[in-house]
């Protein structure tokens, strides 16, 4: 039972345009959400996070939006750059899980120059 779902395995975007990566979750107890970025042969690196008390968090070109009623979050990258090409993982946590993160399967983003 996948509690965190990234339904798009891949996404291709032109350089300079907006990239939108989506994530859906099923557990209403999740209260903290994170995005990680992973390059080939490297471990995932933290990108941006959002608490369930907020609906938006922005950090430079990266913005995460949270829609609790829809159990949906999205990561916006604007403008997209070729160096953003990577696998993006959505992750969620809940008090009942302690410090464990539940990850989605990832979305491969390709930014074309």
């Amino acid at each position, binding site marked *: 039972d996948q509690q965190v779902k990234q339904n798009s395995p891949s996404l291709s975007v032109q350089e300079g345009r907006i990239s939108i990566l989506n994530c859906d979750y099923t557990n209403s107890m999740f209260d903290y959400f994170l995005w990680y970025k992973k390059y080939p042969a490297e*471990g995932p690196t*933290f990108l941006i996070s959002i608490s369930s008390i907020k609906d938006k968090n922005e950090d430079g070109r990266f913005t995460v939006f949270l829609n609790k009623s829809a159990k949906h979050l999205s990561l916006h990258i604007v403008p997209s750059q070729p160096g953003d090409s990577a696998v993006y993982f959505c992750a969620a946590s809940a008090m009942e899980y302690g410090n464990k993160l539940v*990850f989605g399967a990832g979305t491969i983003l390709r930014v074309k120059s």
Partner: protein
Amino acid sequence: GAGVSQSPSNKVTEKGKDVELRCDPISGHTALYWYRQSLGQGLEFLIYFQGNSAPDKSGLPSDRFSAERTGGSVSTLTIQRTQQEDSAVYLCASSRSGFDGYTFGSGTRLTVV
């Protein structure tokens, strides 16, 4: 070291053999996590160590899997009598505090033939 170090980076083993995977966390990080990523899947939680507390082993898929953390630093994940379904990338992460501080290693790609 500056990052989380995992060894070996690649391991091919015959079905039925035991394997040991090693993780050197960042110095001073009290929390250590093991995850694995099977093909097309998200990161699956395996085990979590926090300081001197008893580890959270709730994610270990079978009793063939075990892990220890010696002296609050290096951790070893052992898989006994490996099966083909154990083939995955095994990722270790350490954290000083909270989720933002998760630093992943580059992983060990395990292939059971």
